[in-house]
């Protein structure tokens, strides 16, 4: 078990007029190798939850255990926790700060105690993993790169200290369609080669449907669903949550009202095209 969360409750501004319960009795765990999508409206508690997993918010009530680090114990080893959990914040390109890409990516490993040559080696490896050319980019200022490149460098800065879990807070926000696709493909390939466990926050249900094997839905600080994308989008009534359905699912449901029934495991454009092909080649209604 990578992450175990039990009865987690958190209140902002407790005993003030601004008191707000951000997390309410949240319990779930994440296993190694899972790709979990975390969804919910703005203000549903997603960021508060993520910050707990990385020890950025002090645990007040409940339990958070990341690998063997128990955050409910006195003085948990936060340094080690943060090495386990690599966190990519929203718009990470604004957090690049060093003069060169090399220095920026080496910052993490050096702070976790690596020697310089070792850190450089790690940085080189991480930058290469994100699909950038190390020799070409290492001495350039991060500020002169394109938006997509900056975001890759930001991810490299995390990969350089080899975390075991990646937490991505809206990794595709603000990118153009090609940039979005590249970023998602990068994350998918990292899962195979480098970091198998990924938690992604996204408002884009098409992305969640395509790239996550499990979804957790927060609403008003409560965990209301912990299920697969297929079950969430086909079985549960998510309309009250103002969640948009993935387009492919929406089309399947509309077709069903008109009498064209397709399997309830279709989540992506390609899967929909395949199912339609099969349906019509078999002779439509007679299938």
């Amino acid at each position, binding site marked *: 078990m990578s992450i175990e969360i039990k009865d987690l409750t958190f209140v902002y501004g407790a005993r003030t007029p601004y008191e707000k319960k951000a997390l309410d009795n949240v319990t779930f765990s994440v296993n190694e190798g899972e790709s979990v999508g975390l969804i919910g*409206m703005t203000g549903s508690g997603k960021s508060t939850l993520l910050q707990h997993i990385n020890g950025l918010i002090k645990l007040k009530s409940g339990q958070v255990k990341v690998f063997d680090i128990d955050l409910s114990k006195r003085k948990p080893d936060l340094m080690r926790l943060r090495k386990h959990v690599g966190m990519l914040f929203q718009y990470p390109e604004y957090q690049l700060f060093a003069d060169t890409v090399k220095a920026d990516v080496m910052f993490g490993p050096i702070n976790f105690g690596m020697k310089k040559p070792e850190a450089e080696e790690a940085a080189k490896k991480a930058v290469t993993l994100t699909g950038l050319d190390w020799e070409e980019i290492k001495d350039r200022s991060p500020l002169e790169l394109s938006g997509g490149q900056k975001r890759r460098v930001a991810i490299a800065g995390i990969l350089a200290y080899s975390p075991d879990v990646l937490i991505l807070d809206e990794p595709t926000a603000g*990118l153009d*369609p090609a940039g979005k696709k590249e970023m998602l493909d990068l994350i998918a390939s990292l899962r195979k080669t480098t970091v198998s466990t990924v938690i992604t926050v996204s*408002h884009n249900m098409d992305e969640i449907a395509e790239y996550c094997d499990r979804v957790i839905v927060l609403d008003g600080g409560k965990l209301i669903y912990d299920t697969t994308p297929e079950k969430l989008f086909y079985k549960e009534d998510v309309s009250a949550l103002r969640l948009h359905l993935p*387009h492919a699912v929406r089309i399947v449901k509309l077709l069903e009202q008109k009498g064209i029934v397709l399997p309830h495991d279709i989540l992506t454009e*390609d899967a929909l095209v395949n199912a339609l092909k099969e349906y019509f080649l078999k002779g439509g209604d007679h299938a």
Partner: protein
Amino acid sequence: MSILELNDLSFSYKTDEEETIGVKNINLTVEKGEFIVLLGHNGCGKSTLAKLLNGLLLPDEGTVSVDGFLTSDESNIYKIRSKVGMVFQNPDNQMVASIIEDDVAFGPENLGVERSEIVKRVEWALEAVGMSAYRKGTPFKLSGGQKQRIAIASVLAMKPDVLILDESTAMLDPQGREEVLSVVKKLNADGMTVILITHYMDEATDADRIVVMNAGQIEATGTPKEIFSDKELIDRCRLHPPVCCGVMHKLSALGFPVEPVLTDEEAVEVLCRLR
């Protein structure tokens, strides 16, 4: 009647060492009341074009004329800025005052509008974006969508003819995007000319006209249906059409007799006819 006229417009960014093309040989006429969506991948020149439209950048070659006034004539610049209002991507970067109605009043104050008129305009602008109830509040406690609506109100208070939104929905959640888009569509229905720059293809399906840019040039203009059914154009300009369009492209490539669509509902209609 045309409100914007761009003739052979070119602009490049120059530093001591290098010159980067921003936009090149742009010819475009925008009619009053049109809803135009500008598409293209990052770095294709969309924002450069937007900044040329209200004189934030001045053309190297060619001209931009706003309601008959050239941006290259310095004496026109205030007039042009009040005619072409711009809302940017990051809501937090666009708030200047700590009280919402002061923020909205900032534009007309700077244009030297009479106080009594400013009061009227602020009231009208906040009403138009559905934020009147918040007028005495502070912008900093609002959601992203609400902040962008205030940013739009601040532009409206200058009574512009053209509203440009440069990826103004990019940082918003789905609810915020819907809020902003419904305000923009309502303004357009009331006669405002709108130029919307976006990466969300589903925001483009309601446009009167889509302008696709690539490498600083206009690659194509057309109705949403024309643009999204052009598979070759989409691939070349690295656009990503809505899922329903993608499904139609792929079925058509497989030999099914389908036609271009813009919405999931239309797609379902077309598919039902295949039975």
